[in-house]
């Protein structure tokens, strides 16, 4: 089995699994005032402090959630619901993750005006047009991916945050795909932005870095105006009510520390594998085209996203799966149908092209053997999937 879909989810780190179970075996609700509650609370707050250290923010700014989707919803909806009077627009770049896209669509149904920002040909948000859109009348908030989860293109988060600060508009940054793979400091990105403007919220998810699925966080700046989605016991600054998941927090904190500690060496290791995989595929399938930024420094270290002209993703994925290789066509909908990727469409590609892409993503457990496995079958798979193998029969 060769797993090349680490962007979908990656293996649970053994240390995180152990920590998760160890803490889960202890009893106590972190909101209780008795001894058991106090012991749980201590583990929870220590975990929050460790996460804050990794994320470059204050512990009070870490709001633990159930994962990326909840973090993004809280960030986007929360900022929208506490917008300044007279401002009615959301700045939405093309090619955002569905968690953002569909949340903004839902807000648009409630009256939000959407200001789209087109991506450039490699899938990057142009800082110039982002800034220009921020300056337009009535911008209530903006959102942006730190790195695109499908094509792996890295945005200039610092420049986007700076232009939001300058325009006096609050920005939510979706760092789910970037966290653990790129240097990340909330304080550095926030810089000296005025209260309630610039980078004010940042989403991360646990299962993308080897923590359990069901863990995540939204970093919320102290000065941000943000309305909660969940109401109840008023936990976590009243921004996220609900009994807190102490074991999840402990496992998430440990996985985050490990991911950040090994980030530099792991990034260069994955970068080498990525480049060998991309070059090897293009050698075997000359018509395959690398989408996203061809410059290795502009894309996520483990991401190889390719267009295979004339070969439906469904067929390629089937053939790869039959050869024991797990890859993806991007994000999948609930019925399990591979939708034509809106990200690939946002690169200016056709629907047919958007249905002919494969994303290989490498991670902690990836090795040369995984790359070799893909290279061994990709030529034949492309021949078959594109109908070339059976044409004339």
């Amino acid at each position, binding site marked *: 089995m060769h797993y090349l879909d680490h962007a979908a989810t990656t293996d649970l780190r053994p240390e995180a699994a152990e920590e998760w179970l160890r803490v889960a075996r202890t009893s106590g609700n972190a909101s209780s005032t008795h001894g058991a509650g106090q012991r749980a609370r201590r583990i929870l707050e220590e975990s929050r402090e460790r996460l804050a250290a990794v994320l470059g923010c204050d512990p009070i700014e870490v709001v633990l959630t159930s994962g990326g989707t909840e973090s993004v919803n809280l960030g986007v909806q929360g900022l929208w619901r506490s917008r300044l009077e007279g401002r009615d627009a959301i700045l939405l770049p093309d090619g955002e993750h569905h968690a953002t896209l569909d949340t903004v669509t839902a807000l648009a149904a409630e009256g939000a005006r959407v200001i789209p920002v087109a991506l450039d040909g490699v899938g990057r948000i142009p800082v110039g047009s982002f800034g220009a859109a921020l300056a337009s009348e009535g911008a209530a908030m903006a959102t942006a991916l730190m790195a695109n989860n499908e094509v792996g293109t890295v945005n200039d988060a610092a420049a986007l945050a700076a232009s939001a600060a300058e325009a006096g508009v609050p920005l939510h940054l979706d760092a789910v795909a970037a966290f653990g793979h790129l240097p990340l400091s909330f304080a550095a990105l926030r810089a000296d932005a005025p209260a309630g403007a610039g980078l004010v919220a940042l989403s991360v998810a646990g299962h993308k870095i080897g923590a359990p699925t069901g863990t995540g966080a939204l970093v919320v700046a102290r000065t941000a105006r943000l309305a909660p989605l969940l109401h109840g016991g008023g936990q976590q600054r009243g921004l996220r009510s609900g009994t807190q998941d102490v074991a999840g927090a402990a496992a998430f904190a440990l996985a985050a520390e490990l991911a950040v500690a090994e980030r530099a060496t792991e990034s260069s290791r994955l970068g080498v594998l990525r480049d060998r995989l991309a070059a090897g595929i293009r050698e075997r399938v000359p018509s395959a085209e690398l989408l996203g930024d061809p410059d290795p420094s502009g894309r996520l270290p483990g991401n190889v996203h390719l267009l295979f002209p004339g070969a439906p993703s469904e*067929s390629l994925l089937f*053939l790869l799966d039959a050869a024991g290789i797990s890859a993806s066509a991007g994000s999948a909908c609930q*019925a399990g149908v591979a939708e034509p990727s809106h990200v690939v469409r946002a690169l200016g590609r056709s629907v047919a092209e958007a249905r002919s892409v494969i994303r290989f993503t490498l991670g902690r457990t990836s090795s040369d053997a995984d790359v070799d496995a893909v290279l061994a079958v990709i030529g034949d798979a492309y021949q*078959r999937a594109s109908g070339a193998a*059976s044409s004339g029969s």
Partner: protein
Amino acid sequence: MVGPRPAARSYTGSMRVLAAMSGGVDSAVAAARAVEAGHDVVGVHLALSRAGGTLRTGSRGCCTIEDAMDARRAADLLGIPFYVWDFSERFREDVIEDFVSEYRAGRTPNPCLRCNEKIKFAALLERAIELGFDAVCTGHYATLVDGEDGLELHRASDAAKDQSYVLGVLTAEQLAHTYFPLGSTPSKALVRAEAAERGLSVAQKPDSHDICFIPDGDTRGWLAEKVGAEQGEILDRDGAVVGTHDGAHAFTVGQRRGLRLGVPAPDGKPRFVLEVRPVSNTVVVGPKEALAIAEISGERRSWAGAAPSLDEFACEVQIRAHADPVPARAFVSAEGVRVVPDAPLDGVAPGQSAVLYVGTRVLGQFTIDRTVSAVPVGA
């Protein structure tokens, strides 16, 4: 009618089989039998509608998330790989748009037959072959028989469930890559019992019927929306105006209700739709006797196996999925097929497929272009 039944084809050895799984009980049991027979089986659910609902409502609707889930759970139980493939674009073009344009042209299409012809045994089968499969397996009730002149398509053992009519469009090439594990089952009840025994959760799922892409079953309303309403005249067989209507597409040959005729028939008897003329947006009505059809013909034909060796032969003709077959003579020429039934046919509309049988065997089919009334005008 049914003579001695030839033995169904046995698939020995191990084939690579792609099992089309709708989420219903038939395709689940078909896939289970394919697995049990020792074949290398992969399950696939076709997403045919992008706007499919979330949940089933009774026997209606298709491609719901629940159907895809049912298919997936059946595949899980069988221990086979499972994928959902999106054929919604092809389905929209080849089945839904064809359905609308046929109605627009005053014809009565059968979308299930079109789906078999264009999607399941064409687009899906082509992809299956490309990907290295030997056959597509479905839960259709029909049998394949190795005959003297090659592969033959026959009716299912269970006459009540027989689906050979909607498979009449398959060609020899398509049949060669087709596998119907349910065809020899004596009854649908046994298939349900088998599903329950195998622990398949769909054992008691209601049968689907109606047209899958018209979720509420209101075909007329759905068509009115697609084709649009436009007032036109209702004529009698002599061309006299006897009423008006809101769109010819809403009428089908043999229909009696909903005519709301202003002028009564001279003999006071009820009148029926005899013909729909979409170009002039007129509907022709007349007495019940005039519905009797003495001859049908059409150009678009296909043979389910070897083509008939004679230009003229005795057969049985069936013009709807659940109509009784009628003894007839068929005449085959370069222009197409003409069929003269021994007794007049009722309720024939252009656009329907006429499937020709000899005993249990399906010879082939043609799309009806022209009909000749058994009762001439003025008679």
